Every structure is written in structure tokens, then in C-alpha cells.
């Protein structure tokens, strides 16, 4: 039974950089790690303007689909130097970039397989709670992914990162035409 009421969210505000920026924040893996990719893109608001004061955070499995976490019942990840987690503030053009490894596919408790994906949280002034989305990869087989299957077919594209030189491009549109699919987590 649950009995304590959860603490509500509040916006991270325009000065989130003070508390939340780390020098190695964007480095899910260190520079020079074999197989490293950069996932980059821009965050836009409902007018198409860049969101210049957002924070993008990512969380993902390693290339074998494992997590360095005690609640992963399959045992520990064996991917040294892989943090799984990254954060990057957006710049004057709304841009962010995370250096990581491409995640592996994941089993679900229902016996399905989730296609490789990265969970994303976006925090910013004007966001009273984080918004959560997922990055999938255009060059993977996403056809059987059980989460994508719940998303309207004409909006799935907003969750697909496109290959670019050195990695993938993934934009976040907070509102309006081309609005990114956001999840209730």
C-alpha cells in the first residue's frame, strides 16, 4: 500500500545551468571510445523558435541491451566506462549533443522485444514537469516494437533519429506542427 503523497514537480527555470551542468554531462562514454556515436539535434517551441535554455537528459541500455542497475534481473552490465546516462544544455540555436554508444534491443516482461531506444527527458523554463520522449533509430528494425505500435502511425516519425555523419539527428518539437510524441511515464 502506498501512503505518502508524492512531491510535485516544478520548473527547472531559466538558471538550471547553475545546478545541473557537468563538464562530462554529454559523455555517456568518453571521447575516443570505439563505436561512439553522437546524437544531436535541436529543441523547438510552438513558434518554431529554438529553445535556448533547455536541458536534455538521456538514459539507455548498453550495446548488449543491459543496464548497470540492480533492478535489471538479468545481471550486471559488462560495458566498462558506459554510464548509460547523459545530459546536455541547449545552446543559442537550441542545439544539444550527446556522445554515446548505440543501445541494444531489450526484452519486455510480456515476452516482446523493444527495438533499440534511448529515453529522453527535457527540462526547461516553461516546463512545469519534464517531458519524456524516446529516440529510435531509422536504420534499425522498429516494426515489432511494442511502444511504437501504440503511437499513431502518422506521428511515429517524430521518434525516429536519422543517420548523419558521426551519429544521428533527433529534434524535439515541444508543440505545434510536427510536435514530438511525448509519453506519460
Amino acid at each position, binding site marked *: 500500500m502506498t501512503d505518502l503523497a508524492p512531491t*510535485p514537480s516544478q520548473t527547472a527555470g531559466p538558471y538550471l545551468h547553475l*545546478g*545541473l551542468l557537468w563538464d562530462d554531462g554529454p559523455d555517456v562514454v568518453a571521447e575516443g571510445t570505439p563505436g561512439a556515436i553522437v546524437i544531436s539535434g535541436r529543441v523547438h517551441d510552438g513558434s518554431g523558435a529554438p529553445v535556448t535554455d533547455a536541458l536534455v537528459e538521456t538514459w539507455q541500455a548498453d550495446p548488449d541491451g543491459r543496464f548497470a542497475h540492480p533492478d535489471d534481473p538479468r545481471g550486471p552490465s559488462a560495458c566498462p566506462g558506459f554510464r548509460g546516462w547523459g545530459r546536455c544544455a541547449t545552446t543559442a540555436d537550441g542545439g544539444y549533443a550527446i556522445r554515446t554508444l548505440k543501445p541494444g534491443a531489450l526484452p*519486455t516482461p510480456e515476452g516482446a522485444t523493444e527495438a533499440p531506444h534511448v529515453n529522453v527527458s527535457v527540462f526547461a523554463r516553461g516546463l512545469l514537469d519534464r517531458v519524456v520522449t524516446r529516440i529510435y533509430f531509422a536504420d534499425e528494425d522498429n516494426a515489432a516494437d511494442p511502444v511504437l505500435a501504440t503511437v499513431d502511425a502518422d506521428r511515429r516519425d517524430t521518434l525516429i533519429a536519422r543517420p548523419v555523419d558521426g551519429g544521428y539527428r533527433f529534434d524535439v518539437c*515541444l508543440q505545434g506542427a510536427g510536435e514530438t510524441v511525448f509519453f506519460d*511515464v
Partner: protein
Amino acid sequence: MIVLPSYERPVGVHPPLDSPGYGSTALRHPKRDLVLLPQNLTEVTGPMLGADRIRPGDDDLTHALGGEAQGQRIRVFGRVLDSDGRPVRDSLVEVWQANAAGRYRHAADNWDAPLDPHFTGVGRVLTDADGRYGFTTVKPGAYPWRNHHNAWRPAHIHFSLFGRAFTQRLVTQMYFPDDPLIPYDPVLGAIPDPAARERLVSRFSLAGTTPMYQLAFEFDIVLRGPAATPMEAPHDD
């Protein structure tokens, strides 16, 4: 077969992303409905950021840049729990705040209140085995902002928490008791439930003070806990 923990989905706790009283939400809130995300491996795990993220002195914001900060010295402390009352242990807590005059050490804060040469307004602590955390700082000042005519933010400290799962990630703000600006604040006021708003207001703690040194405010944080498991129907025998 894998068995995963699951986390409750709180209803009516968080402020709606579309909150017209807070002008910056206008162009930043999604207009389409959120899609329900199942809690699979990526959701029930999360970064276990620990002691390697803390440096000596990160729990004392009153000594920085070679001197002592100006203002009312306070201790802020409490526990991080889940909604089952279990401590969230060894978990990183990040805080940031304005100085005693209500000014942030940030290039985008151009209000002409004075900067404090010995206050950065940034702290990091780790919860202990009982979920307890604490840090020493100065009480932040209120400050004006441009949300509406004569708008002032009540004094607050920003908190960032990770818990142990992606689902538990929380960024919030702590307020101070008896702050006269609270009823006028559209950020806190965006939370629909008055009882939920009250949970963001710290309590003065005489027991937590240090005589001749600092006042104290207590602020407990509750992250989403395990979802209630379905109970078997009770037997009548």
C-alpha cells in the same frame, strides 16, 4: 521471463504543462495527448550517480570563492523517501538558488540586485542509508520577474533528484513557510491541489538549528513508489 518493479503513476500531483498563469508555458507545452509508456527495463532502471559526483564542501554553500557568503545562514535538511515510506538511499541531490539578495550567479540574470562574491548558489549532496540529506546555505531572496505586472518569485531553492529509476526523476522547488509571496506565485500556484502545494513548503525546525550558528528548515521529498499490487479478494471464511 523477467519480472520488473512497477511504479505508481500519481494523478493530480504535478502541475499541468499548460498553465496559462505561467506565461512561459504557452509555447512550450505539448498540445497532443501524452502516450502511456509501459514501465519496461529502460523505465525501471536509472543512473546510480553516487559519491564520485560529490566534492568536499559541496554541502556548504556559505563558503565559496575564498570567503563567506552574506545572508541568513540556514541548514536545509530532510529525507528522500518513496511513497511506501522507504528511504531513497545513496542518491544524488542537486540544488541551486539565488543569493540572499535574490540574484542568481548566472549570465541571464540581469536584475540589478548585488552579486555576492562568495556565493555560487550551487550544492550537491548524497542521501544516506536512511534517505537523509542536508546542506548549509543562506536563505535566498525573492526576486522580480516579467511574467506579469509586478511579479515576484517567492524565495525558493531548486532541487533535482534521481531516485533509482527513470520513472522517479524529479526536479522541483522548495519554498519557505510564511512567505507572503506564495499566494501570488503562478509557478507554485500551477499545482491544482492545495495539499500538494503545501508539500513544497519547508517547515521551520528548532530542533534542526545549530545554536549560535544557523537556523534550520526541514523538507522531505517523496518520489513515486511501487505501484500497489492487486490484492486477492478477501475470503469470507
